[in-house]
Structure formats: structure tokens, C-alpha cells
């Protein structure tokens, strides 16, 4: 089963994990201790998120990363049977396990799926970052639509980067093969066959039906958190989608609104100029609104969506951990009841007990890692959105102020001091 790709000093890796290393990402840009009122300026967050993706990786690089991966250059690939997209995956590394320092391969979505399922299989209680979905049902996005491809490419890029900074997963043999093999198909054929995998699933289901004797408190709390988090992140995602929808409808109406001023200007003399001024202001505010919508769609929505998928991953991880424990408990009970072949069974039970311990440790370690990562990612996305909102209002303000200036600069002949007004 598992264990092939786990390095010998497994527990050593776990202890090495320094939570603060992730937090250092923020403290690098702050002015600390001296009590400055804005320890984290939104702009530093924004810059982090907005920079080119390579630079983003460098910023996150607090502890001398030795492997950098990027996904780009999607190209349509046509065969006799099907058409699909191939992405270019470029790796730069100084790791000794790699034969060279640079690799370039072409991979399709199915290859990513293969990699992820391998990683999950080998590390059932590690939190493996999710992949973008196979296809999007609502909106009926075409598989070869440019926006869809770009969104997917970005998500695939993030996926590989998450793997590459993971202290355990980045050393996976499968990961190496994925990054370096010219042709992946032959490797995909290897490994446990379909039937044996089926057998595992059946056993897992059977075990879960038995139910757990007692789940350790910490994992019960974790389960509760996962359920709550899943609800909340889905809600935030839904609200965000709704906001985008409302913004789009608002923008549509704005586009109808500004021409009413210019049309009116056509039949006026003195009033024509201020009317046109207002028309132009409304139009420019519309452009700002369009930008704001773009930003939401490209920054906040993907981030939220990723964590919606993460929530599902977490649930699966919890289930797998429970299954491992259930399997052990089942065999342990059998050991207690049957007097047959105690020795062999005892060995099996011991092995399963170790497996439980390993699984729990892996999850424990990865849990805090994941939480830090989640906080970072979501904070960045939210702050960027807030910053964009502020910018939106600043721009609109400037638009209207310049209109006011243009009106006040005109010699006003109406101020003759008549009674009225």
C-alpha cells in the first residue's frame, strides 16, 4: 500500500515544519513593533497577488525553494479520435534527485488527474490541493472557450505550485515523473490495477459501515471545523457570484442611462454642455464598474472556488483517516475474538496500528500547514478586492470632481443677485 514514496525520516520532516515560515510572508513587508497603525497595508497584499506568477513564487520563497514549476502555453492537440488541450509544464530545479536542472514537457488535464490520484493514494491523510473541475455545468462554458482555458491553466499552475512547496508531496516519485517524463502514458499504465483499486474501495466502504469505535477528540473537532468551513466558504462563493450578477445588471442599466443625457443635450443650448458633461461622467463610472467586475471574476472568484474544492478534499481526507482507523479496529476485534492463527493476525494488526499512527501524524502536521496556507490565500484575495473597491470609488470621485471643476470655471452670468434663490 502506502510507504513507497515516504522518505525514511518521515517524522523528521513533520517536526521540521515551522509554522512561522509561512507567516513570514507577511512580516517581510510590514513595519513591525514600533506600533505603526497599519502593519499590513493592503497594497503590499495586492502587489503580492498581482505580480507575475513567477515573482509570486519568489515572494513566497521564505526558505530557499529549490524547485519552480509553471504551466503555460495551452495548445490544441488533434488526433484521429479526439481533440484536447496540451499545456506546457516547465520545471527549474537544483535538486539532486533530478537528472537535469530544467525540464519542459507537455501535459493534458487527464495527466494532472492521474498525478493527483496517485498522490492521494500514496498519502491518504495528506491534504492534496484540488484540481479545477472537469467541466463547468452552469454557464455552459465550452471546453475550448478561451476564458475557460485560461482559468483552467491558472488553476493547474496553482496546483503544481502547491505540490512543489509541500514538504512531503514535492518529493513524490510520481511528481518527478510527471514533471520530467517525455511521455507519460507508459507510466500511467503502471501501478495497482483497476481491480485491486476496486477492492480497496469496497473494503473502505465496508469498514465505514461498521462505524468507528472512538474517534480521537482532536479529529472530531477537526471534522466539525471542516463541516463549518465548507458551509461558510460555499456561502461566500455564492454571495460573490450573486454580487457579480447584480453588478453586471447595474452596468447594463448604466449603459442605457448615460445616453439619455447626451440625447437631451441635442435639444438644448445653454444646457448642452453640462448635460454632455454628466453623460461622460456616467460613462466613465461605467468603465470603472466594468473593471471592478473583472477584478472580482479574476481574483476573488478563483480563490474562493479553490477553497470550496479544498473543503471537499478535507472531507475526503477525514473519511480516509476514519477508514484507516476502522480497518485497524476491525482486525483488532477479530484478533480478540478468534483464537486462530494469532501470530499472523497479530503481525497484521501491529502493521495496521502503525498505519493508523502514521496517518494521524501526517494529517496533524499537514493540518496546520493547510490552515496557514488557507488564511494567506483568502486574506490576500479579500484584501485585493477591498483595495480594488477603494480604487473604484476614488476613480469615480475624480470623474465627478473634474466635472464640477469644469462647471465652476465657467463665468456664471446668473449670479445677478435677483431675489429668487
Amino acid at each position, binding site marked *: 500500500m502506502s510507504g513507497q514514496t515516504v522518505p525514511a525520516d518521515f517524522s523528521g520532516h513533520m517536526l521540521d515544519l515551522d509554522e512561522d515560515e509561512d507567516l513570514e510572508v507577511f512580516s517581510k513587508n510590514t513595519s513591525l513593533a514600533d506600533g505603526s*497603525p*497599519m*502593519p*499590513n497595508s*493592503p497594497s503590499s497584499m495586492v502587489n503580492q497577488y498581482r505580480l507575475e506568477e513567477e515573482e509570486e513564487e519568489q515572494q513566497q520563497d521564505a526558505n530557499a525553494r529549490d524547485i519552480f514549476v509553471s504551466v503555460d502555453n495551452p495548445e490544441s492537440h488533434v488526433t484521429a479520435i479526439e481533440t484536447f488541450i496540451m499545456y506546457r509544464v516547465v520545471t527549474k530545479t537544483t535538486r539532486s534527485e533530478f537528472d537535469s536542472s530544467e525540464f519542459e514537457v507537455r501535459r493534458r488535464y487527464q495527466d494532472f488527474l492521474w498525478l493527483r490520484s496517485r498522490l492521494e493514494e500514496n498519502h491518504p491523510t495528506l491534504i492534496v490541493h484540488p484540481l479545477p473541475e472537469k467541466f463547468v455545468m452552469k454557464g455552459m462554458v465550452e471546453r475550448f472557450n478561451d476564458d475557460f482555458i485560461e482559468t483552467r491553466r491558472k488553476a493547474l499552475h496553482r496546483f503544481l505550485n502547491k505540490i512543489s512547496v509541500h514538504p512531503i508531496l514535492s518529493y513524490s516519485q510520481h511528481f518527478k515523473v510527471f514533471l520530467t517524463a517525455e511521455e507519460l502514458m507508459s507510466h500511467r499504465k503502471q501501478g495497482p490495477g483497476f481491480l485491486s483499486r476496486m477492492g480497496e474501495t469496497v473494503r473502505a466502504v465496508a469498514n465505514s459501515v461498521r462505524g468507528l469505535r472512538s474517534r480521537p477528540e482532536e479529529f472530531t473537532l477537526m471534522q466539525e*471545523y471542516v463541516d*463549518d*468551513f465548507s458551509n*461558510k466558504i460555499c*456561502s*461566500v462563493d455564492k*454571495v460573490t457570484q*450573486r*454580487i457579480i450578477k*447584480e*453588478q453586471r*445588471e*447595474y452596468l*447594463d*442599466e*448604466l449603459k*442605457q*442611462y448615460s445616453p*439619455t*443625457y447626451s*440625447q*437631451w443635450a441635442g*435639444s438644448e*443650448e*445653454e*444646457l448642452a454642455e*453640462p*448635460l454632455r*458633461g*454628466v453623460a461622460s*461622467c456616467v460613462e466613465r463610472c461605467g468603465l470603472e464598474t466594468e473593471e471592478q467586475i473583472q477584478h472580482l471574476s479574476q481574483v476573488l472568484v478563483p480563490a474562493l472556488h479553490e477553497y470550496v474544492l479544498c473543503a471537499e478534499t478535507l472531507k475526503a481526507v477525514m473519511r480516509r483517516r476514519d477508514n484507516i482507523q476502522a480497518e485497524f479496529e476491525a482486525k483488532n476485534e477479530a484478533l480478540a475474538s478468534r483464537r486462530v492463527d494469532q501470530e499472523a493476525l497479530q503481525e497484521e494488526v501491529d502493521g495496521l496500528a502503525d498505519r493508523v499512527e502514521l496517518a494521524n501524524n501526517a494529517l496533524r502536521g499537514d493540518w496546520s500547514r493547510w490552515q496557514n496556507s488557507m*488564511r494567506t490565500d*483568502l*486574506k490576500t484575495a*479579500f*484584501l485585493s478586492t*477591498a483595495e480594488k*473597491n*477603494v480604487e473604484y*470609488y*476614488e476613480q*469615480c*470621485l475624480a470623474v*465627478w*470632481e473634474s*466635472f*464640477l471643476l469644469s*462647471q465652476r470655471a465657467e463665468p456664471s452670468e*446668473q449670479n445677478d443677485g435677483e*431675489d*429668487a*434663490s
Partner: protein
Amino acid sequence: SIHPSIYPSIHLSIYLSNDPNVLQRSMVEEGSTLVRRMEICVAEAEKRSGKNAVNMQETFTVYLIETRCFAICISSCLTSAVHEFTSAFSPDSLWRRYSEFELLRNYLLVTYPYIVVPPLPEKRAEFVWHKLSADNMDPDFVERRRIGLENFLLRVASHPVLSNDKILHHFLTEEHGWKEVVYETGFQAKADSRIRALSATFRVRNPDKRFMEMKHYSDQLQSHTSQLLRARARVADRLYGVYKVHGNYGRVFSEWSAIEKEMGDGLQSAGHHMDAYAASIDDILEEEEHYADQLKEYLFYAEALRAVCRKHELTQFELEMASQDLISKKQQHEELATGIVRTFSFKGMTNKLFGQEAPEQREARIKLLEELIAEGEDTVKEKTVECEEHVERAWVDMQRFKEQKDKDLREALINYAVMQISMCKKVEKSISAPELFGA
């Protein structure tokens, strides 16, 4: 808001003048040494119930009109300044229903057909966006109507012609019996029938070009302002939706903050900001309604402007008809007198077929025609005067209206920009708080 008082034709500059002739002239023009200056406001609105004309129970709103007179004495010593005394008594007040305002306005429309009469605020809420109640009893609507009625009174009271009207003064000062006085003027009989007016529009031959242009302009003004108002209402509706959905963030962030340790405070504060943001739209849109009301006033003004142009068409048409009638009578007279038939007529034909009539009859008819011609000439003179007077006076008021419109609407547009700016500043302040999402 504006408080123009009734200030017909004495200008401040005259008070400062040392020239006795100037003051004397103006005193002659006014006919009195006392200039009544009146402060007018529509102070309150109240709900009442009572029985209506068909004896059914109804609820309606009444508005309190308060007036205060200033007495100004022009001293005979010309070098001294004008003394002002406020009247010792507290403001006069009386209650009026919207329907009474309508009656007043209808009276003014009929009595001064050459004036662009200021419009009343709308009877029913139109151009509503979804939240704004279309209910006449809604307190926001009642408040905006109160302001609109006050604005109407101030416009009328500061108009050089309308402000002198006695019925207007009665309206402001006599609560009871006012309606009877208005009806007694018989203005309803003087009102032009719609059919006559419509017929004139189609059949008039030589209307004044300027009036036709003005009529065309009034159509444009009406169509453009109503399109603008409709589009604005839809934008307001959508904007409302955007802000309110952000309120959902508020709830979710607060709930989420409960399960997070490190991120909890940040999420909590973000939640609060979202709630505040969502709540802020109500005031923003309420203020925008006042802008919409300013535009609506000119939407309704367009109607008043068109009415003046149509009156011109009517007077011109009646003049043309009267002239035409006179011409034809003169022709008939000529035919009878000379026996020369210039135009075809059935009478002429029957004469030919059945023989001429007796000489006495002919004489009688000639005499009758001469009377009619004399009457007709008077009528033509009358109509000519009516038409010319209307043209002259209407042209003056239309110019006055144009200037007022340009000034008011420009100010309205500027205020709209000011509103947008203040809204942006307010929102920006609330969402750029540094503790958002936590340090």
C-alpha cells in the same frame, strides 16, 4: 431650499437711491407706499379622514401653509435706509388638500393662458424603483410632496404676473370659503374646450414660427426628461440590489469568524463593514430622489409650455376663422348687391333654377348681411387684439421661463455631481478601514 418672497417690482437699488423722481415713479407704479412681503412655507403634512362627495369614507393628507407678512415702510426721508418691521403677530396658517392646490392651478391656467404656469408635484408616484413605495400615504412620498407644494407656491409667489393674483392671496390667507370664491370667478366657463383646441392645432394656417419651434422644444423636453427619469430609476433599482447583496457577506463573515482563531477578528470586522455598506444605500437613494424631483418639475413644466403654444394656435386659428368668415360675408354681400356671382353657391343655383327671389327679400338679406359684416369686423378686431396680446405677453414669459430653466437645471446637474462625490467619499471611508481582515 429657495425662499423667494413676493417681491414684485421694487428693487433694492431703489432704496439706496437719492433721486426723488425714481422713488416717486416707482411709488406710482405700485400704487401704494406699502409693499407686502410675505414669507411662505408648507410646514407640515397630516392625515385626515372624512366623507367624500359620494359619501364614502376616505383618508387624505392635508398640508399646513404658513405665511408671515413683513411690512416695509418707505420713509419720506430719502437718505435714510428702509425700515423693516416684521409683523408682531405669529405666522398665519391654514390647511389645504392637494385637490385645492389643483383647483388653484387650474384657475391660474385659465386666467393666464400666456403664462407658463409652474407645475404641481406629481399626484401619484411615477418612475418608481422597486423599493420606493408607490403608495400615496408613504411618509417619504408625503414629505417629498410637501416640498414640491412649497416649491410650487414659491414659484407662483415670485412670478411677476401671477404673484399679484387675488385668488392666490385668498388661497394663502382664507381657509374657509376659498373654493366658493374661485368658482364665482366663473373661470371654468372660460376654459377652452379640448376639442376646439385640438381642432385648432390641425387647422391653423399661419401660426407664429417661434411658437411652433417652442412647441417642438416642449415635446423634446418632455420626452428627454421622461427617458432620463425612467433610466435613472432602473439604475437606482440595480444599485440597490448590489448594495443589499453585500449585506449577505456581513452575515456569513460573522458566522465564519466564530470558527476561526487567527482570522476571526478580521472576518468579524469585515462583516460589520459589509453590513454598514449595505445599509448606506437607503440614504443615498433617498437623496437622489430629490434630484429626480427637480427633473420631474421640468418634465411637468414642458406640459405648461406646450399649453401656452397651443393657446396661441387657438387664438390664431380663431382670428383666421373670423377673418375668413368676414371675407365670405363680404363676398355674399357683393353678390347680392351687384348680382355678379363670383363663386358657386347653392343659393345661386336655385335662384337660376327656380327664379330669383322678390326684391324686398333681397333688400332684407342685404341689410342683414351688412349688420353681420359690421359685427364680423368687430370680431376680427377683437380676435386680432387677443392674438397679438397673447403673442406679446407669452413671448416675454417664455423667455423668462427659458432663463429660469437653464439656471435651475444647471444647478441640479451640479448638485447631482456633488451628491455623487459625497457618496463616494462616505463609502470609501467606510471600506478602507485598516483593520479590515485583520493585521
